[in-house]
């Protein structure tokens, strides 16, 4: 599969979520737990602290699904979530990671 085809398919099937959270030990469980308990697969996760480290940013690559709007509302309700933004699958954040994920 060449890169263009792959991106096109991603654009149809995936969405990228950008989530600003308070940085502590439980926050990742809170966020991904919302997906796992609905059998909603998370295809990709990236997370690093932001600024002074009191906050982190979580990037999720997820399947486009009718439930996605509801998922975003549920994420937004979490006490440690400050903001959530939705991007298309062609967002750059996951694009340059391919070399780390060769079989």
């Amino acid at each position: 599969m060449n890169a263009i085809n792959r991106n096109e398919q991603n654009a149809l099937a995936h969405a990228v979520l950008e989530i600003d959270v308070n940085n502590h030990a439980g926050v990742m469980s809170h966020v991904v737990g919302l997906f796992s308990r609905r059998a909603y697969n998370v295809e990709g996760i990236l997370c690093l602290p932001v600024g002074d480290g009191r906050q982190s940013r979580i990037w999720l690559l997820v399947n486009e699904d009718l439930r996605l709007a509801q998922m975003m509302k549920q994420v937004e309700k979490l006490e440690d979530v400050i903001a959530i933004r939705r991007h298309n699958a062609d967002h750059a954040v996951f694009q340059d990671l391919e070399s780390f994920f060769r079989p």
Partner: protein
Amino acid sequence: MTETLTGAQITVRLLERQGIRTVAGIPGGAILPIYDALGQSTAIHHVLARHEQGAGFMAQGMARATGLPAVCLASSGPGATNLLTAIADAKLDSIPLVAITGQVPKAMIGTDAFQEVDTYGLSIPITKHNFLVSSAEEVLEVIPRAFRIAASGRPGPVLVDIPKDVQMQAIEISEWPEPGRAEPAPAADSALIEQAAAMINTAERPILYLGGGVIHSGASTAAIELAEKAGLPTVMTLMALGAMPVDHPLALGMLGMHAARYTNLALDECDLLIAVGARFDDRATGKVAAFCPQAKIIHIDIDPAELDKIKSAHIGITADIGEALSQLLPATFQNSRKNWVDRVNALKAEFPFDLHSTDNPRSHFGLIQSVAACLDDDAIIATDVGQHQMWVAQAYPLRRPRQWLTSGGLGTMGFGVPAAIGAALAERERTVVCFTGDGSIMMNIQELVTAAEENVNIKIVLMDNATLGLVHQQQTLFYGERLFASQFRSSPDFVKIAQGFGIAAVDLDASANPCATLMEAISRPGPCLIHASIDAEQKVYPMVPPGAANRDMIGA
């Protein structure tokens, strides 16, 4: 002035400052520092439950009766896991609860230490929020925050897990944080309110659909005012019963699986559904695609995630119910809506709810009516879960918000007795009746001795059919009458059991005059178990078969 206090003493002081006067729990190794501090408190009364789930439901009973966050305590490991069911129950019914659990010392976390379990991880999906506290300083911030989260917006349970070394850590305190209180919800969008009012004003066959959010918001009076002004026949969910008195001329009672036939038929005809603090639960809607098929929908809820979750609303408004209704009321026209109200009354007359043999106190409905006849609206009515719960929901004349305490979303057998004890502890002046079944009461029967110890004014009406009634009913109706594991081959002597636990008990079966026996048992102060055998063949009717549309009811 600075004081040196331990994390445990700080926890107790913060609970006192929060206004907490009663807590329920069971001590154990990992929470002993907090219990040691609690023992020194003159402000807080500790109720010693006999199982942590009982403690959780007692706290729920306090919270449901008062609307304020209530507290339960448990130790680490099995203490914490035993609390989980009560916490999950509070989550589904949006009950403000603060659960405090002891944890093994920080250095031992993750080592499979004695009575260590991942309480934080276990409680993530069943709490509104949870904390694992890592220092005594953090206790100062976390406890008020736990109360704020539990009470704000859509209420819910918050768990605070405190390692033993944090409880024992001493720090200097010079200043106390403000107690955590509910934060005001954002105001309803006035443009949307105007659109909603216009929709109500032009509707021909509107129905007001009240959910538990109306109770939580303290908006029952506002809801009744709106119904009366705009001429809105009104249905209630299980959680909203009591919001509008059952005998109000516009009241259509509970909707859904065990509604009166006329209630579901009226919903089938409505052209506008005004959902207020309700979440379109499957027990209320039946087959969603066939629920109110002709209706436009206005949906008002404090939780934005409820809007468009099950049914897309034409107008969705995120707001506190009371605030939204206070905006909506002046914008709606006075309208008796005679044609529609007449039509609904015709449905009522054509498909009346059959409270057969209500005058016979040995029948299920008769017993419920006889209990009601002994009480006024000040009484609190708690239930367990099962056939008895649905019969009480159908037949008890509920007329007051917070009069009705029942496990709705999770449907937890074992809820009734401890929740009734909690309600009685919180509202000492009221009589609390707990309707239960022989299946349910066995799931937390150990709390009868707590009732004796606390001498709470609860009357447990045990409707005994020696079966798991709803299972028996479903197997009879939908599984070819293959009754399996739903009939008890051995039943205890409940009267002796109650007496053995130290509470009074009467058996209506043996009474020549059951109404008089009932009246005497209810008017005598203190805890009492009232045993009454009922017919195991009785069904909860009408019934919407699981998965069917609400219009396709069977029975009665």
